[in-house]
């Protein structure tokens, strides 16, 4: 609780900086207009003008919030102009990608912990796979899935986000499954526990705190993956597409509102996973 005040003041400082930046970056347009009209605006007039330009270089926060409000609350949800609609498209692909990535990550983690040959041959490649910039592959995945005849853009997007989110989950799960110490493993042996029992009653529960922590990173990465999957080669729906369209055709403010929406979505997703983590660990008696 004692960090509320510092956080609020840092947020206030960021907003103040944003306003200052908006005045500074938008003023050149104001001055240009004034020069054309042959007038000399005062400082107050310049500042007032930078607050509500239609094609601002850096839109001030209230403009972004107004646009966000306008494109979520004031539009029908099914409308192509509604950010709720685009956010839903992105969320849908993110959740599929996350599910896929989590399944792959957990499956690999279990086999890496149980089979030494997997640990020796696959683990190094899992690490190398993350040094490959996935965005390099994104346009190709989209083109190829199109060629194979998969019309739905959900598939390539989900694949890209799965690629980004499987690794943190894999690493966290491996760490968690290995966290029981020799004493606990020996205890299971003295209970005459089978391999499956050892897994379900000791290793799996012990891995959950690690798993949840890495799932929070994973779901944020999945969202990044989906948005990256929407950026190249003409997607029409989704927050990433909204950013692209705003860049090429629409007023720049749309990029900002889409970015803001994406940030809210990211915070919500991480928050939900955090909530599940807290409830689950509390019921398991592992809450810290």
């Amino acid at each position, binding site marked *: 609780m*004692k*960090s509320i005040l*510092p*956080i*609020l*003041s*840092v*947020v206030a400082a*960021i907003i103040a900086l944003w306003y200052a930046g908006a005045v500074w970056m938008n003023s050149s347009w104001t001055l240009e207009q004034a020069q054309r009209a042959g007038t000399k605006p005062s400082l107050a007039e310049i500042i007032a003008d930078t607050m509500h330009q239609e094609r601002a*270089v850096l839109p001030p926060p209230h403009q972004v919030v107004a646009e966000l409000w306008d494109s979520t609350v004031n539009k029908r949800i099914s409308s192509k102009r509604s950010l709720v609609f685009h956010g839903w498209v992105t969320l849908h692909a993110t959740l599929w990608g996350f599910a896929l990535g989590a399944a792959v990550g957990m499956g690999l983690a279990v086999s890496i912990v149980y*089979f*030494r*040959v997997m*640990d*020796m*041959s*696959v*683990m*190094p*490649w899992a690490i*190398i796979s*993350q*040094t*490959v*910039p996935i*965005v*390099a*592959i994104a*346009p*190709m995945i*989209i*083109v*190829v899935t199109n*060629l*194979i005849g998969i019309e739905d853009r959900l598939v390539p997007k989900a694949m890209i986000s799965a690629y980004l989110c499987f690794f943190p989950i894999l690493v966290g799960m491996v760490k968690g499954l290995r966290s029981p110490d020799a004493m606990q493993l020996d205890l299971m042996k003295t209970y005459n526990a089978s391999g499956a029992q050892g897994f379900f009653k000791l290793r799996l529960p012990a891995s959950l705190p690690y798993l949840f922590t890495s799932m929070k*990173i994973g779901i*944020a990465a999945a*969202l*990044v993956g989906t*948005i*990256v999957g929407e*950026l*190249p*080669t003409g997607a029409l729906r989704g*927050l*990433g597409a909204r*950013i*692209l369209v*705003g*860049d090429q055709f629409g007023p*720049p403010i749309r*990029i*900002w509102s*889409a*970015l803001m929406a*994406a*940030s809210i979505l*990211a*915070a919500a997703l*991480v928050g939900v996973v955090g909530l599940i983590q807290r409830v689950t660990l509390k019921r398991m008696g592992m809450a810290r």
Partner: protein
Amino acid sequence: MNWLIFGLLFWAAAFALNLGLARSRWRDTGWARVAAPLVFGGTLLVLWESLVRGLQINPIILPPPSAIAARFSQAGDILWLDFVQTAVKGALSGYAIGALAAFGVAIVVDRAVFLQRGLLPIGNFVAALPIVGIAPILVKWYGFGWQSKAAVVVVMVFFPIMVNTVQGLKEADPMQRDLMRTYAAGYWKTLLKLRLPAAMPFVFNGLKVATTLALIGAIVAEYFGSPIYGMGFRIQSEAGRLSMDMVWAEIAVAALAGSVFYGTVTLMERIVTFWHPSQRG
């Protein structure tokens, strides 16, 4: 058909080899740790090649590795030009600026507990946001050249490095700080001789995460406008022309650049934090 049988046989043989390696008495030696992943990777390539040939997959959908390798050696100068534009000018310069800025800010933040409490949660939060989305905005501001790519990279790498550095600077425990006090060491001496070295494992964590982010940022930013060279530009335009062997060659460059970048930082980490338990293994 023959290719398919060959591929499957090769796979079975390699699998048996790795299984044998994992159970042999050399399994904890250094060369076994290198050989096993190499065998695995090589098998993937052979399997890929023989599947593409055996099933006669259209090279537009999936070109065989041999075609990619041929293209890689043919188009060397184009690939080099793209590499310099994106990886060196865009990613590397942005990475250096971003890392230095994050480092500086972290040291300033570290002096005030108030700032720490405020900036750490926000930095953690921002690090989870899809920051790549600002790429179109920065490309608008700084133009199509490599400067805009570097700007995107600066923003993307800043937060992970800053958060990790601030956290690392807290690492030195009170006993060690007291010892520095008894040596009559001032703030700067303590910082240089105790707290920065103690922070290094954390700093390198951030630096390692940021290597991948830097390449991602530089490539994505090129989708929003670039001169007619650069890795992101090339991938997108060649994918549009369906010359997939070139796309794959470019991906190979990206993978290589990413791995070398990450490997270099890991090597530096090993040199700088030789004293840390995780490095003494």
